[in-house]
């Protein structure tokens, strides 16, 4: 008997989802009693609250920098405060006539950051560009060679925020890598040291680390040695952030199957080659969301340096409004303004991390 010839059924495309807007509404907002009730409650709250917010922020708001015009109670937000104080908020106590310097420095730093995010530019010369860029940044901010000198305690606002965030992220990341590897080391001394470091740092709040860096640390230094407060604070944030980041990275390291390391060993790769080529690329790809969490947290944690008298963005806002009785009542508007600045940066970081996640997980896609 001849075998029956097998006829395979040709593959067909999946059915198109139908229903349009009504279908979506029914599926997502009014699927059953529970979703309907929660949709109504949340929708009701939004209906009640959003108009009030709109009314305050736009409809009855006063837009010109005139503090007296804002006094009547029926006036909503007083956005004039931003127009009046933005230079103080953005540049802090930096000498007024010299504020073109932090402006150029900020633009420079942001350009560098954007350039570094583009894959096309991930070349060795990018490191050189950073050295050059940071050199320029410090020259502009600090002065010397033709520019008048401005000490670091006068720096403030957005350039200071960007500098603190960028440098502490750039230094914390490699430190975190080493600590994460160290915690899994076969050498007990290194393992203990790294564990001790992580546990000690995680056991204290960032504010106390900054206090120690700023006030206690100089007490232990020999008389006469003076380390700039900016550097001490940078070291504090870096050490603090690296401890958390190390734990995130360690989580990724633990997810790498033992077989990967064995295969690398069987191919003759050394410990460092294995870590660099096999383990870390996979471990880091897995923890991109966690690491970006750390980056964003560092960016916002820089606002704590106010307590050691460095007036970055948040501190500069306080400085700008507290000193002026006319404008002091309009802090909310000021905070909304800097909140938008923080949000713009953090949102960009978060979107960028999604792209990085896709890029590094290419091998996992079908």
């Amino acid at each position, binding site marked *: 008997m001849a075998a029956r010839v097998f006829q395979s059924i040709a593959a067909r495309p999946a059915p198109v989802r139908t229903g349009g807007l009504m279908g979506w509404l029914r599926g997502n907002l009014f699927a059953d009693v529970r979703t309907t009730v929660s949709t109504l409650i949340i929708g009701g709250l939004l209906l009640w609250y959003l108009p009030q917010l709109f009314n305050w922020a736009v409809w009855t708001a006063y837009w010109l920098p005139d503090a007296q015009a804002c006094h009547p109670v029926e006036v909503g937000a007083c956005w004039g405060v931003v127009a009046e104080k933005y230079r103080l908020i953005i540049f802090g106590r930096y000498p007024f006539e010299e504020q073109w310097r932090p402006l150029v420095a900020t633009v420079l730093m942001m350009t560098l950051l954007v350039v570094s995010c583009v894959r096309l530019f991930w070349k060795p010369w990018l490191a050189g560009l950073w050295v050059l860029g940071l050199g320029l940044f410090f020259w502009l901010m600090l002065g010397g060679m033709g520019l008048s000198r401005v000490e670091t305690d006068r720096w403030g606002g957005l350039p200071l925020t960007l500098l603190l965030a960028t440098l502490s992220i750039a230094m914390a990341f490699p430190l975190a890598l080493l600590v994460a590897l160290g915690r899994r080391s076969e050498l007990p001394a290194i393992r203990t040291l790294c564990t001790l470091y992580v546990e000690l740092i995680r056991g204290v709040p960032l504010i106390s680390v900054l206090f120690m860096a700023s006030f206690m640390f100089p007490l232990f230094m020999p008389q006469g040695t003076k380390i700039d407060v900016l550097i001490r604070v940078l070291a504090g944030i870096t050490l603090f952030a690296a401890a958390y980041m190390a734990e995130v990275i360690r989580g990724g390291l633990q997810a790498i*199957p033992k*077989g*990967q390391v*064995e*295969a*690398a*060993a*069987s*191919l*003759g*790769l*050394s410990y460092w*080659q294995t870590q660099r*080529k*096999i383990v870390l*690329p*996979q471990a880091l*790809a897995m923890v991109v969301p966690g690491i970006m969490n750390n980056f964003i947290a560092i960016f916002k944690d820089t606002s704590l340096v106010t307590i050691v008298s460095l007036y970055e963005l948040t501190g500069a806002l306080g400085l700008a409004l507290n000193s002026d009785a006319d404008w002091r009542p309009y802090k909310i508007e000021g905070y909304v303004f800097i909140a938008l600045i923080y949000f713009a940066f953090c949102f960009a970081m978060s979107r960028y991390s999604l792209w990085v996640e896709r890029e*590094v997980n*290419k*091998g*996992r*896609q*079908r």
Partner: protein
Amino acid sequence: MNTPIISFEKVNKWYGNDFHVLRDIDLSVAKGERIVICGPSGSGKSTLIRCINRLEEHQQGRLVVDGIELSDDVKAIDTVRKQVGMVFQQFNLFPHLTVLENLTLSPMWVGKLPKKEAEERAMAQLERVRIAEQAAKYPLQLSGGQQQRVAIARALCLTPKIMLFDEPTSALDPEMIKEVLDVMIELANQGITMLCVTHEMGFAKAVADRVIFMDQGQIVEQNTPDQFFNHPQTDRAQDFLSKILGH
């Protein structure tokens, strides 16, 4: 007889304090010899071959590979690993690298070959396992059989003198076992020294010079495939064979 390329002399190993996984192993492997190791699970087969490239450390006895005694000496381990290719049950390809990058990694970083030469060598090995057209893909985009053939090609890129196979077909779908065994048979016929932990008796009959049967950390019996399968000498081997060939 020439000096053996691998020799175990009274090798012992324990996992922890009380699991004696290798017990007084004496074994010498001649250059070009093809050996199949079988035995029940937990008998120490994998551990035995993993000692050869020091993925496992033996605690007593002497183990000499290609004239080099394996000890804590890192240099010696590196030298031996360059001579020994290994294929794992779970393939252990690097999922973040393409097939080609998996193959060029060691030649470029360990062998210090220029990229172009490493890629030529890699492509030649991919041809050998008949999978050259997949060079640009990532491992997880391939079937199990294809992945294992890539893994074999990767090990061959070291131009090793010895190839170790640790249950290379145990994680494969039945339909894919043959394509991997075919590659291994071809390799066996080209004169490389092979040690293969497997239960593929057809493969053992086709290529093995010697079958080694292990149980409870010992080499119980070793013989030609013909003698071993048809006239097992010990009751333990008879029992084992009746179980794997019983149906």
